[in-house]
C-alpha cells in the first residue's frame, strides 16, 4: 500500500500541473479545484507554495464523519471513495482538519485517493509515492 507524499514541496514552482493532471486523468474534468491535490501560495507568491492534499490519516476523521459510507477507512491511511454512496452533505469537508477535501458548487466532493497519477507530471520532482507499513492484524499473526 502506498500513499502520496510531498517531501520536496519547497521546490514547487506553482505550475499547477499536478492539480490539472488529477482533475483530467482521475476525475475526468478540466479544473483547478476538482483535484486531490491543490496548490496555493503560502502567503503570497514571494513566499513559495504549499500543497493541499490528503495526509492519509488513520483513523481518518472524514471517514468517521461520513454518514453514508461513501468515505471508508483505507488500510495504510486515507479513504476509499464510493461516489455512488455520496449524498453531498459536505460533512467530510468539515471534518478534515487540513482542508484536503474539496466540494464543488453542485455538491460532489473530491479527495486524494493516493493513486499517484500526479507524480509524473511534477517537473521538479516534488511528489512521490511512499510505501506504507501496515501493522499485521491479530488474525494474521495467529
Amino acid at each position: 500500500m502506498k500513499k502520496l507524499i510531498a517531501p520536496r514541496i519547497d521546490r514547487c514552482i506553482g505550475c499547477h500541473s499536478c492539480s490539472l493532471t488529477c482533475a483530467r486523468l482521475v476525475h475526468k474534468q478540466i479544473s483547478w479545484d476538482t483535484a486531490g491535490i491543490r496548490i496555493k501560495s503560502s502567503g503570497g507568491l514571494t513566499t513559495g507554495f504549499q500543497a493541499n492534499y490528503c495526509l492519509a490519516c488513520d483513523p481518518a476523521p472524514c471517514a468517521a464523519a461520513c454518514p453514508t459510507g461513501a468515505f471508508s477507512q483505507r488500510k495504510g491511511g486515507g479513504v476509499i471513495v464510493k461516489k455512488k454512496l455520496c449524498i453531498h452533505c459536505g460533512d467530510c469537508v468539515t471534518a478534515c482538519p487540513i482542508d484536503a477535501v474539496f466540494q464543488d458548487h453542485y455538491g460532489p466532493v473530491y479527495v486524494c485517493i493516493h493513486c499517484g497519477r500526479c507524480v509524473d507530471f511534477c517537473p521538479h520532482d516534488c511528489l512521490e509515492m511512499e510505501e506504507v507499513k501496515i501493522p499485521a492484524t491479530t488474525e494474521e499473526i495467529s
Partner: protein
Amino acid sequence: MIRNHFRILVVNLSSGKGQIVQLDGRNSEAGGSGLAALLFNKYGLPEHPWNDTRQPIIFAIGPLTGYFPLMSKTVCSFKSPYHDQYTESHAGGRSALSLFFANLDALVITGKAKQLCYVSVSSRSLDIKNVSFMKGMTVDESGKILRNISKGSGHRTTLRIGPAGENGSAMANINVDTYRHFGRLGGGAVLGVKNCKAILIHGDAIFPGIENKEYNKLFEKVYQQVTATDMMKKYHNLGTPANLQGLNDIKSLPWRNLQATSDPAIGAINGERFAKDNLLRNSACSGCPVGCIHVGYVREMFDANHRYIFKQVSYDYEMIFSLGTMLGVTETHAVLSILDLMEKTGLDAMSGGVALAWATEATEKGLISEQESKVKLSFGDSEAYQLATKMLGNGANDFYRLLGQGTLRAAAEYGGIDFACVLGQEMAGYATGEVFFAAQSLGFRHSHLDTGAYTYDQKHSDQDIEGAVDFLISDEAGRAVMTSMVSCLFARGVYKEELLADCLHSIGYPELAAGLDPLGKHIQKLRWQTRIATGFTPEGTTIPKRFFKVKTWKGAIDSEYLNS
C-alpha cells in the same frame, strides 16, 4: 470551455454593471489576438483618444488555454497612451487560467468608476468595490491588501497598477501576480483613467473532461517535449539572461544608451553571474511546467547594526539590458534594486531604463541639468537611477512627466532626438542589425517578439531586402496564430503548425485545425487594419541617427539597407 462562440463579460465602470455577451467568430478569429481585435472593432472608438473613458481595455484568451502546457498567456489590447493607436501587450502568471476558469473567453472593461475601485470577477460573481484608500499605493502594497481582502488563493490572478498608471504615464504597466506584466505601451494608464486600481479574477469553474482518448496522449507528448527534452532548457536554466554574454560577444548588446555594443564588464552582470549571486528560485505561470520565471534577491542593510531588508525581484534579459548595460550599471544587486523600484511604481522596466539612458546622455551633453532631473544622472550611478526611477514613476515634475510620455516627447522639448533609442517605442535589447531595427520600428507591438528579426540578423550577413521582408511577413502571421491560441512564444519551437492542428482537433475544433495558415494571415490583416484605423502610418516611422552609427559583428550599419 469548448464552444463554437465566444463568451465575453463586458463591465461598464460608469454604470457599475456587467453584461455577458455571446459573439460568433471562433473559426475566423480563434481567440487571443484575433478575438481582441474583433472586440476592439466592436467596442473601441478608433477616432477618439486613448483616454476617452468609453474606450475598452480587453483581456482575451484562446481555444487551447487550459488544455495544453504553455498555453498560459493572455492578450491585453487597448488604445495606447504612447502613440494613441491600437496595440496589444501579453502576459502570463495566473491570468490566462483564471480567465479560463472564470468561464470567459475575454473580459472587456469600459467606462470610468466614480472613485478608485477594483473589479472582482469569478464564474459566478461580479463585484466592483471602492478602494479609494489605495490611491498612490505601490504595486506591492496594493497586492498585499488585495490578497487579504479577496478569496481564491492559488486560483486567482491579481492585475494591478502603481502610481505610474494612476498618473497617466505612457510607460505604466499592469502588474500580473507580482512577477509578470502587461508591460509595454501604457496599459496601466488606460486602467488609471478608468479609476481602476486592480482586477481580480478567481477561476472557480469546473468543465467536463475531453472524452477523445487522443487528447490525453497528445497532452502527455507535449508535456514530455517541454520537460524531458532540451527544447526548453534555455528558458529554465539561466533563462533569457543567458543571451547577455552571447550578444555582447557578437557586438549586439546595447551599452550606455547604445554608445557601444560590447563591453568587457559583461562578466559582472551576465546570466551566469545573476544565477550564481542572486538567483533565489524559479517560478511558473499556471499551466506551464517550464518555470522560466527567475526570482532574484537583494539584501539591503538599512541600519548600521546589521538590520536588513530583503527583496525578491524577477529578472529577465530585457531588464538587465535596460537597467544594467544601457545605464552602465555593472553590479547585479544594483540592477535588481533599480528594477525593484520600477516594479513598485508600476513602470515598464524596459521603457523606463531606456528613457533614463537617454536622460543620462542628455545630461552629459548639457541638454538637461539637475534642475530638470533633480539628481545628477551619470552612467553607472545606480543610487541616482533609483531616485530617478521613483520620480519617473511618480511624475515628480514637468520633466519626468514628459519623459514618462516617451523619450521622443522629452527629446522634442529638450533636444537629443538623434540619440533617443526609440524604435516605435523604447528599444528592446538587440543591436543585431538593420532587419531588427526596421522590424521593431514597424512591428505591430514594437516588440522584439513581433517577429524573429533579431535572430534573422544573427544568421544573415547578406542584404536580401526581399528575402528579409518575406521572412518578416510570414513569421508575423505564424506568431499571430500562436498569440491567438494563446501560447507563450517561448514554445514556438514546440508548437509547430502540425502540432497545433493536432491539439485543436483533439479537443473538438476541427475547422480551426484545418485552416491555420489562412487563420494567421486573416488575424495579421485584422490586427493591422485595426491599428491603421486608429492612425498608424508606416511613413510616419523614423529611426533616430544613433541606430545608423551602430557597429555589430557584421560591421557598421548600412544606412541604405536600413532605409530600404
